C-alpha cells in the first residue's frame, strides 16, 4: 500500500462502484417515473468507451500519494469524461425515444460528480493556494460551466427543458433571490455594525442584546417567516402609505424582514469578536499616543478586526441564500418558488431548477467571501 493515498483509494473504490449505478434516467414524459440506464447502455461503445476510459484514468491518477498536481489532472480528466458521457449519452437516449421523452442525470452521475469534485478539492487543499490563485480558479471554473451551458450541449437534459419553458420566470426569480439575500445582508450590516460597535463599548447593552439576538436565531425559519406575516399586515394597516411602498403581509417584505432578523446575531457577534482581536498592548499604545476612542476604533480596532467582521458577513450571506428558499412558501419569490412548485407537482426537474442554483450561489459566495476574508487578514497571522 506504500505510496498510495488513502483518500485516493477511497475515491477509486467509490468511483468504480458509482460507474455501475444507473447513470441517467429516461422517462416517457415529464411526469412519469423514468427507468435508470447504466453507463454502457447509453450509446454505442465507441461513444461511451472514451468517456469511461477518461474516468478510469482519472480515478487511477488520484491514487499516488503526495502528488497533488497528478490528482488535480485526474479529477479534471474524470470531470471531462463525465461531461462527455452526459452530453453524448443524453443525445443518444433521446434519439431512440419518443417526442415527449425526458432524460436526466441519475444517481451514478451525481455520485461520480461528487467523487471527482471532492478529489479536486482535496488535491487543491493540499496545495493551499493563495487568495489570488483561488480567485483565478473560481473564475476559470465558472467560465467553463458558463461556456458549457451557453454552448447548448446540455439542452437535451430535462432540467434544461424546464428552464427553457420558464426562462423569464427563472431570471426574475434569480433577481428576487439575490435581492433577498444581498438586500438583507446589507440591511443587517447597516443595523448590525453600529449595534456591534455600541455594545462593544457598553456592557449593559451587550448583555441585553445578545440573548435576544440568539433567541431570534433559534426560531425555525418557517415559523419566523410565518410570524412575520401578521406583523407586517398589521404594520401595513397601521402606517399610512406602507402598502404603497410594498409593505404587506405576504410577499417580499416579510421574507426580507425575517432574513434581516436572522442576520443580526452573526453580524453583531462577529463585530464584537473582531473588535476584541486588537491586542491590549496595541490599544494601550494607541491611547498612549493620544488617540481618541473614535480614532482608536477607526484606525486600530476596526482594521484589525475586519477579517472577523467579514467572516460574520460570510456566515450571513451563505445562510440567507439558503433561507431565502423559504420565501417561496409565502409568496416572496426567489428559487424557492420552483422548489415548492416542483414538490407540489412531484416534478423532480423543477425542484432541481430551484435547488441547484441555490446550492451553486451559496458555494460561490462562500468561496468568494473566504478569499475576501483572507485578503484582509494581516500577513503575520495568516502564516500560522
Amino acid at each position, binding site marked *: 500500500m506504500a505510496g498510495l493515498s488513502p483518500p485516493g483509494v477511497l475515491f477509486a473504490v467509490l468511483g468504480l462502484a458509482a460507474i455501475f449505478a444507473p447513470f441517467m434516467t429516461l422517462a416517457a414524459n415529464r411526469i412519469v417515473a423514468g427507468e435508470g440506464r447504466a453507463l454502457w447502455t447509453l450509446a454505442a461503445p465507441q461513444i461511451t468507451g472514451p468517456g469511461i476510459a477518461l474516468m478510469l484514468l482519472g480515478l487511477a491518477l488520484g491514487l499516488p500519494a503526495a502528488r497533488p498536481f497528478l490528482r488535480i489532472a485526474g479529477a479534471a480528466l474524470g470531470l471531462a469524461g463525465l461531461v462527455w458521457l452526459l452530453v453524448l449519452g443524453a443525445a443518444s437516449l433521446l434519439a431512440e425515444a419518443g417526442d415527449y421523452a425526458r432524460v436526466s442525470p441519475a444517481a451514478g452521475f451525481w455520485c461520480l460528480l461528487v467523487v471527482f469534485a471532492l478529489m479536486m478539492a482535496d488535491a487543491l487543499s493540499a496545495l493551499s493556494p493563495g487568495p489570488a490563485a483561488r480567485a483565478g480558479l473560481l473564475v476559470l471554473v465558472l467560465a467553463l460551466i458558463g461556456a458549457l451551458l451557453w454552448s447548448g450541449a446540455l439542452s437535451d437534459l430535462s432540467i434544461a427543458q424546464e428552464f427553457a419553458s420558464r426562462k423569464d420566470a427563472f431570471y426574475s426569480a434569480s433577481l428576487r433571490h439575490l435581492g433577498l439575500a444581498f438586500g438583507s445582508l446589507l440591511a443587517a450590516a447597516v443595523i448590525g455594525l453600529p449595534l456591534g460597535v455600541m455594545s462593544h463599548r457598553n456592557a449593559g447593552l451587550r448583555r441585553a442584546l445578545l440573548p435576544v439576538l440568539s433567541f431570534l436565531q433559534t426560531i425555525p425559519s418557517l415559523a419566523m417567516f410565518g410570524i412575520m406575516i401578521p406583523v407586517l399586515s398589521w404594520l401595513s394597516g397601521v402606517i399610512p402609505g406602507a402598502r404603497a411602498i410594498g409593505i404587506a403581509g405576504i410577499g417580499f417584505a416579510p421574507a426580507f424582514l425575517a432574513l434581516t432578523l436572522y442576520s443580526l446575531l452573526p453580524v453583531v457577534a462577529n463585530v464584537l469578536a473582531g473588535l476584541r482581536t486588537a491586542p491590549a498592548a496595541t490599544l494601550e499604545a494607541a491611547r498612549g499616543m493620544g488617540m481618541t476612542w473614535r480614532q482608536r476604533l477607526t484606525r486600530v480596532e476596526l482594521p484589525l478586526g475586519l477579517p472577523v467582521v467579514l467572516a460574520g458577513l460570510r456566515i450571513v450571506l451563505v445562510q440567507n441564500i*439558503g433561507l431565502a428558499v423559504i420565501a417561496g412558501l409565502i409568496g416572496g419569490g426567489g428559487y424557492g418558488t420552483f422548489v415548492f412548485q416542483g414538490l407540489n407537482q412531484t416534478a423532480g426537474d423543477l425542484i*432541481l431548477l430551484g435547488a441547484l442554483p441555490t446550492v451553486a450561489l451559496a458555494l460561490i459566495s462562500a468561496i468568494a467571501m473566504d478569499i475576501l476574508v483572507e485578503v484582509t487578514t494581516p500577513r503575520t497571522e495568516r502564516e500560522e
Partner: protein
Amino acid sequence: MSRSGAIRAACVALLLALVLRPHWFAPVFAPFAPAGGPVIYERASILSLSLSHLGLVALASGLATLVAVGLAILVTRPAGAAFLPLSRTITNIGQTFPPVAVLALAVPALGFGAGPTLVALFLYGLLPIFETAIAGLSTLPPATMEAARGIGLTRWQRLIRVELPLALPVILTGIRLSVVIAIGTATVGSTVAARTLGEVIIAGLLTSNTAFVLQGGVIVGLFAVLVYDALSLLETALTRRLGRQPAGADT
C-alpha cells in the same frame, strides 16, 4: 428561583398548554383567523404532530451523533489521519449547502414522506457534530493525554475514560447546533409530506389563515428555544465541572 429560571418555567408551561390544550388559545388567535374560518388547527392533534416532529428530529440527530462521533474518532486515530484533511474539506463544503436545498434534493432521490426528511436531517446534522467532535478530540490537554498513557491506560481506555468525556462539552455544542437546525428543517419537511408541526404553518399559508401560522410558529419556536436552552445548560454544567470556566461565574 432566578429570573431566567422563572422565564424558563413559564415557557415550558406555555408550550405544554399549547400542545395539550390548544383550544384554550382560541380567543388569542381568533383575531388572526379569516372571518368564519377555523381558529385552531384540527385536522390532526397538535400532540401527535409534536411527537412525530420531535421523534423525527431525535432519530435523525441520534443517528447523526453516532455516525459523526464515530467518524471523528476514526479520523483522529493515527490510522485514519490521512482522511483528516479530506473530512475537513467535506465539512466546509457541506455546511454551505442550504438545509432546505438538501431536503429538496432528497425528494427526487427518495420520494415523499418521512424518509427524505429523515435523510436530509441526518445528512445535514452530521456536519456540525463531526466538526466539533474533531475539534474536541484533537485539542485535548497534552499533559492529560501524556499522563493517561503514562499511568497505563490502553488505547480503548484512553478513548472511553479520558478523550470522549473531555471532548463532550465541545461535541455537545455541535449536537445543539445540529438539533436546532433539524427542528427548523423538519418544519419545512411537511412540504414533502412528513408529519411535523410545519403542517399547521403550511395549512395556514395555503388557506391565508394567519391564526394557524401563528399557532404553529409559536409552538415550533418554543420547542426550538427550549431544546437549545436545555442543551446549553447541560453544556455549561459539564464545562464548569471540567474547570474550563471558573466555578460560580456568570450566574
